[in-house]
């Protein structure tokens, strides 16, 4: 059985730039990046993946979500959190990552007010069938 906490597994995991048709446990991916000295997950493309938490993500740079299911919530704002300070601890930074047709499970979102408002508007519009 693969030891997912081993250094060898971690090095192999963070060296990948693409993930397709697979489940990705985001906390594990984040921890291996941190163990390698990088607190942010950068420049990855996830296609047709299930992205599993529990995790709060903070999209940065040109991170995009294309045709993704962002999670299940009657009120889409239940997926969102407003930082209370100028810095942020405990979230997973995603910089210049692309998510295509992915499904988010137990994933919350945080970031600047403008990002959260835009995401909320998009999710409510999708829920109401406006897009």
């Amino acid at each position, binding site marked *: 059985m693969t030891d997912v906490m081993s250094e060898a597994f971690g090095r192999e995991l963070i060296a990948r730039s693409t993930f397709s048709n697979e489940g990705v446990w985001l906390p*594990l991916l984040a921890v291996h990046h941190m163990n390698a000295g990088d607190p942010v997950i950068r420049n990855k493309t996830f296609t047709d993946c299930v992205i599993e*938490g529990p995790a709060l993500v903070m999209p940065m740079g040109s991170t995009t979500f294309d045709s993704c299911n962002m999670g299940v919530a009657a009120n*889409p704002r239940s997926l969102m959190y407003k930082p209370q300070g100028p*810095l942020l601890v405990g979230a997973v930074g995603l910089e210049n990552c692309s998510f295509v047709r992915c499904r988010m499970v137990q994933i*919350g979102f945080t970031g600047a007010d403008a990002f959260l408002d835009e995401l909320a508007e998009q999710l409510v519009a999708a829920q109401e069938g406006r897009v």
Partner: protein
Amino acid sequence: MSRLPINRPMSVAKSLTQTDFIDVDINLYDLYAAHQQQGAVVGRTFTGCRLQGPAVVLIGGGTTFDETNFGDSRGGMKNLLLQPMGDKALGTVPMHNCTFVGCEFYNVGFTGSPQILEQMAAVPTATGPAE
């Protein structure tokens, strides 16, 4: 006598389903995975434990912290706090009726009701009083 700082060697918890955790190191996302069926970590006691993220803990009813290091707040407790924008808090590690005594958190954010966030924001930090 103060339990903090925790200077013992690393000791990974062998089981994540017990009621009392004493002097062990725990990844919070592993802990959540072990309690996922209940949807929350309920009724556990943590004494002298190091709890590691990345994760955001939802502080539920009955959860208490005694002599706790909440982690590097980078200048202000508010950097550890996130306000839920909806009526649920998805993507977090919910903890209800849990007791923390002499524990340390690493890379963990916290969320909860406005009253909880207010209390947490008032916790003094090593770098100075809460803003």
